């Protein structure tokens, strides 16, 4: 029942994910952070099989960190996306594949451009202007087709995100009470109260 959205705009990427940790029909936690900050200008929203998600996200986090320690510069968003995709694709044909879907948002400090990658547990990778995972995608993608503007300033981007969250709250049977929202831009990753 995880819901996550991501939107790019003028010089930024917004990642949003609900904060519920569910066990069967029970909500066991209401402030779970499902967006991992991977490096100063890279973050990823993860969803999928509980257990796999955190395990895989930490595996990615530490490998991205290791690259930065070894090379003294961080992986750029496109390269990080390729590496993560390869991890998932290799895992898919292993004995126990990771069942994790991702939205990877990054700001390339060399070209000064925001990037957003949509990735699923199969290792399908594509760069998108906006993306979503989970039941939220059925509502958010059609809304974003209409309202997304790649040149919109942050305030407008957040307003469009608000529309998505409100629509899911209104139409999905299981309403997500709270979302964590993180913005990645030239200043790095920061959380926004929403």
């Amino acid at each position, binding site marked *: 029942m995880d819901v996550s959205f991501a939107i790019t705009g003028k010089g930024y990427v917004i990642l949003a994910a609900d904060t519920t940790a569910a066990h069967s029909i029970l909500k066991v936690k209401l402030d779970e952070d499902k967006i991992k900050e991977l490096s100063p200008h890279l973050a990823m929203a993860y969803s999928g099989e509980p257990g796999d998600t955190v395990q895989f996200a930490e595996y990615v986090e530490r490998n991205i960190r290791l690259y930065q320690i070894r090379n003294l510069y961080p992986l750029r968003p496109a390269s990080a996306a390729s590496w993560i995709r390869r991890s*998932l*694709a290799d895992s898919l044909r292993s004995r126990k594949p990771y069942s994790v879907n991702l939205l990877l948002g990054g700001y390339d400090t060399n070209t000064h451009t925001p990037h957003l990658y949509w990735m699923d547990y199969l*290792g399908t990778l*594509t760069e*998108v202007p906006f993306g979503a995972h989970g039941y939220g995608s059925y509502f958010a993608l059609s809304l974003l087709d209409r309202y997304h503007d790649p040149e919109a300033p942050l305030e407008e981007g957040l307003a469009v995100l608000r529309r998505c969250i409100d629509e899911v709250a209104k139409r999905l049977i299981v309403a997500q009470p709270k979302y964590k929202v993180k913005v990645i831009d030239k200043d790095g990753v920061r959380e926004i109260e929403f």
Partner: protein
Amino acid sequence: MSIMDYNGGSVIAMVGKDCVAIASDLRLGVQSLSIASDFQKIFPVTDRIFVGLPGLATDVTTLHEQFRYRVNMYTIKEEREIEPEAFTALVSSTLYEKRFGPYFIEPVIAGMQKLPNGGYAPFIAGTDVIGCINFAKDLIVAGTASEKLFGVAEGLWEPDLEADDLFETISQSLLNAVDRDAYSGWGAIVHVITKDKVVTRTLKGRMD
């Protein structure tokens, strides 16, 4: 629903007079939900060879990377560029390596083959998921709209089309076939390869 149809997408290749064309749609979906409308399925191998990889999207990327690596190794070892026929054999053996757990891709290869007399001849080929090669003289289709592509393309294609006519034929075949397929569409890309140049055009398609 087969895993071959999970992400959708189609590719077609045609032979013309001293030219070949290869075209694909640009959709990436998860069953009937569209995710992206700019997903490339055709990749350059050399200046005169293109390979189309319709099927499961994760394997599109994996195989593209695999082929890039193997073609680079071939180029270094042989100190020359790979020819279409050799590349087709490379594709075939790469797929057959995974005979009992295949990549879910049906590759389409299009290129201009160098002849002993110094000229070039058009070349197209396709394979199934385990690398069985089909050397066609006219056209190759693959992907979720392959049945429709067969129908339209066999009706429109004729031998010895010039580059411009071949472009028109392959474009109309693809656009009209994908309009009848819910899993393909959302724009298209066409490459027309002649002995000295490649012309790439992006087509707009129906967005419904």
